[in-house]
């Protein structure tokens, strides 16, 4: 094929896929009934939950336009005081590590439940982290190319999810939202769904790497909306296939969904396990993105050369390894503190910071 038109930096597609992959992994596998206060209209909550992140993108756009710089964290450093900037960055870093821990623990549980029942959890965790650690050494260009490649492969999966809407087991009667609660409870419950979009925070360090001519906001909106559609689709599918009561008992409704629907249709008897491999890839991509984000934040706290990147990579991988292996195999992980922290670190804090940056005057040329 001709090579004349090859692109050199990250463009619209890379940004679109980066946002998609940073967000979709963990959210989709545990969709939709694991949130704190459950009500029957989960798919509606998923749609409402995206609104804060649309505001996030709107304010981000305003900040970029006002200060004419896509590196908003740099703008923050220039505009704020050290006593504000560094604690914020450290908090973002710790939150990211907390999210990685959560994701890897979840991965281990899913793998142990569905694929490797007789293998000890630490084996799963350690091998995953070794793979991730070595992969991180390849750098963001390789990671971005990988996620684009995998996204292309996943288009088939997305298409197959749409096909499930027409399966025999699907009942539209389960879908209409049943409001047994007041609006306040509904909105409160929706907040927990908001955390599904928390991966969007990682674009803060990715945007400076994107080509100048890229339409970042339009692309980000589109990616976020695709994620919302995917979440809603999975919610509707699960609810329509199992009904509300049964869905509540499933660890991974989407896995059970595929297991039920495709059981007698294909060569693979347990197609859910095959689909599970797609989710492992999704978690691998998400882990790479989150780790890379953590390293980018670290670089802003303690500047270091690119060739020394292996040091923070090793430190973080080892820390996560120790923490995840040290916690018991099957613990009833409470999602509440995790979700609250996610909300603060990925939506409340950034919105406050964006507002602050909007209120401040433009940086002088000298700065």
């Amino acid at each position, binding site marked *: *094929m*001709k*090579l*004349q*038109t*090859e*692109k*050199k930096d990250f*463009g619209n*597609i*890379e940004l679109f896929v980066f946002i998609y992959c940073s967000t979709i992994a963990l959210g989709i596998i545990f969709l939709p009934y694991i949130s704190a206060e459950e009500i029957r209209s989960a798919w509606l909550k998923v749609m409402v939950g995206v609104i804060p992140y649309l505001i996030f993108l709107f304010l981000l756009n305003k900040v970029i336009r006002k200060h004419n710089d896509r590196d908003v964290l740099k703008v923050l450093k220039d505009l704020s005081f050290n006593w504000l900037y560094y604690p914020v960055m450290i908090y973002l870093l710790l939150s990211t590590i907390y999210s990685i821990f959560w994701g890897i623990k979840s991965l281990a549980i899913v*793998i142990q439940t569905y*694929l*490797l029942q007789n*293998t000890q959890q630490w*084996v*799963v965790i350690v*091998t*995953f982290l070794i*793979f991730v650690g*070595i*992969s991180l050494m*390849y*750098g963001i*260009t*390789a*990671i*971005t*190319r*990988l996620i*684009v*490649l*995998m996204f*292309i492969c996943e288009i088939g999966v997305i298409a197959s999810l749409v096909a499930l809407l027409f399966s025999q087991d699907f009942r539209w009667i389960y879908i209409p939202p049943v409001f047994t609660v007041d609006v306040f409870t509904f909105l409160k419950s929706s907040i927990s769904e908001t955390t599904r979009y928390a991966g969007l925070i990682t674009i803060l360090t990715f945007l400076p790497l994107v080509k100048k001519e890229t339409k970042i906001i339009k692309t980000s909106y589109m990616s976020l909306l695709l994620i919302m559609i995917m979440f809603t689709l999975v919610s509707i599918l699960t609810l329509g296939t199992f009904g509300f009561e049964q869905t509540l008992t499933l660890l991974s409704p989407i896995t059970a969904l595929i297991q039920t629907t495709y059981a007698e249709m294909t*060569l*693979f*008897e*347990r197609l859910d*396990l*095959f689909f599970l*491999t797609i989710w*492992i*890839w999704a978690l*691998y991509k998400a882990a790479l993105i989150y780790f890379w984000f953590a390293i980018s934040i670290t670089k802003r706290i303690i500047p270091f050369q690119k060739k020394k990147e292996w040091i923070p990579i090793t430190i973080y991988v080892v820390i996560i390894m120790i923490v995840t292996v040290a916690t018991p195999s099957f613990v009833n992980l409470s999602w509440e503190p995790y979700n609250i922290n996610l909300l603060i670190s990925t939506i409340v804090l950034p919105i406050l910071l964006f507002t602050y940056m909007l209120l401040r005057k433009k940086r002088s040329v000298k700065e």
Partner: protein
Amino acid sequence: MLFKKKQRLDPITLSFDEYLASIVNPEERLPVNIEILKGLMQSIFSESYDFAERLFKLPNGQKAYLCYLSGLINKTDLEDNVLKTLLKREKDIYVSDDFGSILTITNYKNSTIWKEVIDQILSGNVLLLVEGVQPVILLLANKNLRNVADPTTEYQVYGAKIGFIEDSRTNVSIMRQFIKDPRLRSKEYELGKESKTHASLVYLEQYAEDEAVETIDSYLKTFDKDHMLSLGQLTKYVSRHPYSIFPQASKTERPDHAAYALTQGKVVLFVDNSTFCLQAPITFMDMLETSEDHSFLVTWNLTFIRLIRLVSLLVGSALPALYVALVAFQPELIPTTLTINVAQSRAQIPLPATAEAFLMLFALDVLVEASIRLPSFVGQTIGIVGGLVIGTAAVEAGIVSNVMVIVIAFTAVAIFTLPNWEFVSSWRIVRYAFVTSAAVLGLYGLVMAIAFLALHIAKLDSLNRSYLYPLSPFDGKQLRNFFKPAR
């Protein structure tokens, strides 16, 4: 001393320049005295039976001296156009320019310094010294070239029946026959301080990216090895990731393939003594296509064949690992009837599925390697014997299951649908890595190995071009063209 570093004694090997400097000053001009020159030449080419010299007198009484490497020159030209004409010369020769009206050869040039003269003799030219006159180099080199013939390693049904030969200049002229365009540029290089191998870089201006041409040009200009004897050596030199298992340049001995590559904007590199040329930059998808694909009269044939190759690549690399994962870790994934059949076939097998897979993979690769090196008639015998041994006999002996034989046979056939042998070899290595991952962690291990491999491929570049292009960076138009070219 306990930790004293051992002194390493390197064998003393002189470079070409050092060797020459030990006899003459390489930067000095040649003497015009025949006896001195003859003595020095004999020292330089001592113990070389193919070094030939002739001392004779012209009719006018002037002494003349010729020396050359006997196998490399055109003797007929030397006799008819040099010796005969000189022996008829009755007038004195005063300056080297006089040779222009005496010799009937196409070209000659004045000698300069020792280093250059020795290079010229080594290239197959002749040194002529007429006493009192500055020595001249007679350009009479006659390389041992064979005629252009069929390509022997890349069989094609529809493609041109012509292959490259061992001379890079001839190969460039073949390319000129395929592409009659003044924008077909060619640059030449001398690679290897001692081997001085001639290389030609060919590209189509306005098609090839300037950056790619500049990059390979800078690589070639800075080639600092002593010898350049094989194309593989050069491939490693121009590759940014020489230790990757995937090739970052491709080889072909087919001019039609090279011409197609040129029209795709690639650069093509010819090296003397190799019947293959190097093409770069290449991508993963390039490895799935041949120029012959465009010979199909029906476009869908091309689409089908490329899809087949892509699927075969997946099957050929991952099927044994998938078998191990399914049999050893996740038998519930396959239909119950098939599980029972597999279990029955494995009931009398003493080896675990992993060992069975490794054994069969190893046997397959040994067979492939053995049959490649042997003449075709013996190769066929090896194929038949090997097929029986790793097939029927192994199953009947209860060493491997018949399902495993089917898996390996299908794997072998599938991977050979890929047109590029170097690429096939890479995937053969990948197969072992996949089986190892599947043996340790089942489907989970296999999935992680595939993801990691994808990341490794994503990291690769060929002359600064992404190996995954047009998948990533995504270019929908080019991707569509790959499966269904525009009219």
